[in-house]
């Protein structure tokens, strides 16, 4: 099966990932969850807020971004907006992972171009389910 993250023989290619959350605990958990979900991970980058994420992404683009919404300095929705406005980053899928579960926030994220939305608390299976359709 050919796809964005598969080579000509249908094998998964390693995916560089950016995890954006102001909680170091959540960043560690998400790294572990990606391994449990059997996502072929390459490099994992971390950022504590949207500003740091954007700086790192412009230097080192990735194949997938997992981002919280509520963060200091630049929140996840503003980050999403800026990513979609950037010619080199706009096609990177962004999955929001957040406690913000209200319908309005979900719709806002989707309208800004989020590829998926997962509420905290989450299980590894929920993350895997969201990734399946994307990678």
């Amino acid at each position, binding site marked *: 099966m050919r796809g964005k993250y598969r080579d000509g023989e249908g094998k998964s290619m390693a995916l560089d990932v950016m995890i954006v959350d102001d*909680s170091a*605990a959540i960043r560690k958990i998400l790294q572990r969850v990606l391994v449990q979900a059997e996502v072929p991970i390459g490099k994992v980058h971390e950022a504590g807020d949207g500003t740091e994420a954007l700086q790192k992404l412009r230097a080192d683009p990735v194949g997938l971004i997992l981002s919280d919404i509520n963060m200091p300095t630049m929140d996840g929705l503003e980050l999403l907006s800026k990513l979609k406005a950037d010619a080199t980053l706009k096609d990177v899928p962004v999955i929001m992972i957040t406690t*913000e579960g*209200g319908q309005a926030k979900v719709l806002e994220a989707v309208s800004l171009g989020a590829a998926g939305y997962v509420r905290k608390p989450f*299980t590894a299976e929920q993350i895997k389910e969201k990734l399946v359709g994307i990678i």
Partner: protein
Amino acid sequence: MEITHEYLVGQIQSTTLDVLSMMMGMEAACQDGFRQSVDSASGFALGQTQVGQVRCDRETVEAFVGISGPMVGTGVVSCEASTACKLAGAMLMTEVSSVGADVLDAMGEVANMIIGNLKTHIEERVGQLWLSVPSVVYGRNFTARTVGKFEWTVVQVDLPEGKLVVKVCLTEAKPASARTNAESTATV
């Protein structure tokens, strides 16, 4: 729509159980919630029902999250330090023997998730609310105080690993024109 004590208890119980089971794989049982009218947020962890200022004489970790919007208040998640280490260890899937940055961060995130999900439910009734970044306190013999007198809804959660207490106080926000310089809304 009114936010009753019974509604808060039910939501605190369900959000806490979800966080413990989904993020930590822990089975927990919630005790019945109770009201406490105190001017202190701290020290009545672990089932005590003292009124007034109380001191916490065991090593304790308390994570505070502020709430603002049409309702203002504070959410607090607290437990003994040993329980916090076990919660953090379960979240991070590693052995944690003492309270350090990892434990404080994990407890802050536990409070963020419990109070954040509670906020999402309350918003359906009162309109958009906002949460502060969690603040976490670790130590013994400390007293935390909430400015003004408020009623707290308290739920104790029993785990094989120890006890967790979730406390929330919420009140309607006063319009800005009705506030004076001497008054203060609920803050930690």
